[in-house]
């Protein structure tokens, strides 16, 4: 379970998050929607441990771990996965060896046995196939020369292989055509289960037609101004952010 209480954060002394309260029970998928600059990506980065952000107040725990006290790699080993809005290129680093190194680092830190190259490839190929991605995805260098859509799909492939307990998807749907969108949704839906929860950050209702959330939260001005069921996303789509922000004020 992810529990966030009064979380505030700033970048370069500029406050972005201003007291977020949010609980994502185990097994649930929650969507975070909100206008540009509302703090959605900041929330994703603060939870995953990017250190350009200063946490100025509040707490965030995941399954009892004090996330804010942990290094990014410790959070990863505890099961936190961030699908980046802008996935990063690693020239000369093969996707497969990157993922195997990452998976084994996580397993080592959890006291599990490491996978050898053969075991890993078997797993990775199966996931690649399941997500209908081309085989060469694993052979190519991490995100180098990938189109925007390929980068997003690669994030989903990584998620499928690393099997996180909490996935944070930061606008993974932006810039995707409908086919890619479905693949992303499938990646998330197939992980859904009692051991998996997700925070799906998006601007649009569109993705939520494919990943039906248990709860929807609207973030504006660094605070959650409304929470509700999946129908809230439709209401938002109809009214637009401005009206909802005005109503909440």
């Amino acid at each position, binding site marked *: 379970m992810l529990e966030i209480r009064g979380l505030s954060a700033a970048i370069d002394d500029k406050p972005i998050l201003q007291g977020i309260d949010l609980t994502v029970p185990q097994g649930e998928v929650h969507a975070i929607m909100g206008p540009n600059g509302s703090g959605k990506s900041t929330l994703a980065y603060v939870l995953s441990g990017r*250190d350009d952000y200063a946490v100025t107040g509040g707490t965030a725990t995941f399954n009892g771990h004090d996330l804010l006290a942990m*290094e990014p790699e410790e959070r990863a080993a505890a099961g936190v*996965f*961030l699908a980046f809005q802008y996935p990063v290129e690693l020239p000369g*680093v093969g996707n497969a060896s990157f993922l195997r190194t990452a998976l084994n680092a*996580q397993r080592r830190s959890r006291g599990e046995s490491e996978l050898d190259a053969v075991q890993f490839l078997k797993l990775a190929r199966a996931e690649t196939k399941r997500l209908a991605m081309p085989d060469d995805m694993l052979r190519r260098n991490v995100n180098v020369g990938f189109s925007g859509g390929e980068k997003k799909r690669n994030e989903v492939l990584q998620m499928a292989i690393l099997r996180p307990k909490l996935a944070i998807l930061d606008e993974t749907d932006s810039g995707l055509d409908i086919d890619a969108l479905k693949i992303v949704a499938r990646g998330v839906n197939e992980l859904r289960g009692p051991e998996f929860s997700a925070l799906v950050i998006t601007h649009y209702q569109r993705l939520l037609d494919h990943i039906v959330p248990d709860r929807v939260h609207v973030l504006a001005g660094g605070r959650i101004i409304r929470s509700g069921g999946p129908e809230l996303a439709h209401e938002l789509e109809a009214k637009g952010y401005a009206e909802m922000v005005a109503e909440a004020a």
Partner: protein
Amino acid sequence: MPVGTETLDTVQSVTQSGYKWGWETDIEMDLAPKGLNEGTIRLISSRKQEPEWLLAWRLKAYAAWQQMQEPHWARVDHPPIDYQDLHYYAAPKQKPGPKSLDEVDPELLTTYEKLGSPLEERAILAGVDPASIEGGSQIAVDAVFDSVSVATTFRETLKKAGVIFCPISEAVRDHPELVQQYLGSVVPVSDNFFAALNSAVFTDGSFVYIPKGVRCPMELSTYFRINARSTGQFERTLIIADAGSYVSYLEGCTAPMRDENQLHAAVVELVAFDDAQIKYSTVQNWYPGDAEGRGGIYNFVTKRGACRGARSKISWTQVETGSAITWKYPSCVLQGDDSVGEFYSVAVTNNCQQADTGTKMIHIGKRTKSTIISKGISAGRSNNTYRGLVRVLPKASGARNHTQCDSLLIGDCCGAHTVPYIESRNPTAKVEHEATTSKIADDQLFYCRQRGLSEEDAVGLIVNGFCRDVLKELPMEFAVEAQKLLAVSLEGSVG
């Protein structure tokens, strides 16, 4: 705290991990008195029971050296070197000519073990019958301990193939006609200050001759070690690949920790005839000095290959992580038509290390082709310079060169410099130069860490990715070692 600052701090803490290969072996040494004069050279020559022509050759080099000035055009700084304050000859005292490894001083074998030679090689050095060693390729080791070769293995297998692989002092005795013909034919005695010094005082090194049409049945490998206090090391290597032959030669270096700076001025000469190929790979890990720049090896090396024959090919691959100062430009003289020269380099500098390294490709023959891929990685307060010359002479119609120089900076107190010289005197020649400079970006590190990698593993992964085009040129045995070495050299460089 922004990662940038942390990055810097950890770069500075790298050195605390210390130099893994620093130790000293206690073996009784036979030392020449300090100083360099004609007497020293005569002493070296007589200790090695050399023929008159070689003594004369040395003396000629010495005379040339006396007229020369230490070069200062490279982007390196060091206090003056007192050439009279060095021992020019050091040999471990041993019974002459050990017939088998059992006769070799066990201390020496322990030393090689510490060097972390691959298991296969250690087994060979430990005297295990080569035929019983399982798995993979065989590597012949001509182990150079300070100045005298103490163990040469696989001699018999090579002999069957007609390959000569032995200490150069032995080649002087047993194959004088070959040595006399080729020694100094690629790097003349008066080529440069350090080459002249080497020619005057070299004590040992390796000699390789591959006969016509022979593909050398194994990788050849030499480990150089500097072990005696204040002993300059002047290795001399000569490799001749006759028409249609092939050889892959591996050279690896580590050196024990020292307070004083030590001078290393090696000369390597390669000669390739028609259709012959020489692949020369180096992993250089001499002691780099401490975090404040105290100690460390001064590495002034002259390496040059002559592609004398048509369609001959010489490839230099180097991974340079050690030494306080690296001054090294493995070069190719492309005389034969359609001959090919290649230079693949990774140079890592950290703390106060200085590297000025690159290559020279001299295109003389028609349709000669050269490729240069240089990857420089700078961390700490180090300086890393690529210096390269591509020269196309008037007769080299259709010559081609492609140069790719990439620099990677870790932290913001280090420097990367690229100094390409291009001289083309043939209008049909094509010369391309590409250069990039980048930093390990904070977002790359965060991306890796978010996936579960520690910061150090992330740096190792990114650096190895950056060097991939060069590392893949190394023979398998070296590639693994080199990858580890890169990670160790930059340990904690980001944090």
